[in-house]
């Protein structure tokens, strides 16, 4: 019954949180509205998202988000240096193919998003079977190092969280 009414419990929780962030105050009326939205929206969107992704550990996901935010800040400074000071001809851009072991679509989407948001790398494409990502790197003297870094730093963590 609960599963039928709330096909995506984490989505429902997130919608409650989103509503409170939107109204920006703690009131009982807002809670009623939040619970209403958290019930109706997952039910309406369930046909487009039929399966329920596995989520092994919420704290691990939160610490992953913190890690990514920190990496974004560090990488921003590095890319700013490249853009501002490195001579144009010395910037070595490279295409990198990254074979991935993740199977869950949500985990792959999260990995691709992480790669794009950390400046210096952009996820350009994925193989049609979903087992290899194509990444463009702004400055990559050693493309293999970037590939290994992505696999050990992000993919292994996502694998633990989602699979």
């Amino acid at each position: 019954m609960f599963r039928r009414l709330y096909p995506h419990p984490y989505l429902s929780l997130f919608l409650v949180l989103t509503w409170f962030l939107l109204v920006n105050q703690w009131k009982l009326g807002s809670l009623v509205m939040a619970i209403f939205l958290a019930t109706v929206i997952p039910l309406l969107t369930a046909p487009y998202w039929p399966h329920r992704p596995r989520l092994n550990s919420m704290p691990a996901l939160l610490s992953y988000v913190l890690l990514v935010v920190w990496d974004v800040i560090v990488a921003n400074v590095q890319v700013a240096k490249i853009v501002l000071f490195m001579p144009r001809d010395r910037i070595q851009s490279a295409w990198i193919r990254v074979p991935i072991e993740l199977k869950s679509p949500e985990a792959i989407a999260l990995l691709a998003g992480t790669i794009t948001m950390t400046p210096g790398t952009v996820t350009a494409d994925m193989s049609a079977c979903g087992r290899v990502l194509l990444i463009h790197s702004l400055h990559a003297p050693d493309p293999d190092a970037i590939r290994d870094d992505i696999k050990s730093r992000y993919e292994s963590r996502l694998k633990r969280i989602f699979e």
Partner: protein
Amino acid sequence: MTFALDIILSILLVVGGLFGLTGSYGLIRLKDRMQRLHAPTKASTVGLGTALLASMFHGLMIGTGFSWQEVLVMIFIFVTAPITANYLSKVHLQSRHYDGQTPATGVSRDWATFDQQPEDPEPRLPSRDS
């Protein structure tokens, strides 16, 4: 207290502005289409992030309390920006400008942009209860 907050807000705004400026400068300085794609991801993360942080703390200063809506803006930017970047790179790939530079997939199917095989009528997703 207000003075200290003033200083912090100013620093955040200046840092955000500098990163935004660097992102725009990268657009004219970098010489390749894909390289230019890297510049705006910077402006939209740290540049926007610091500006939003400043906006949140500004609420404390003018007495309307800490503002939480900016967290939501940040979440939406982080979710939508990679999709824009992905679509733009797919357009660059589709324009055949990078033919011969991109590596092969190394597996049976080509990159999704070029793949010729018809899609399965029903994509196989993990079942609901697994």
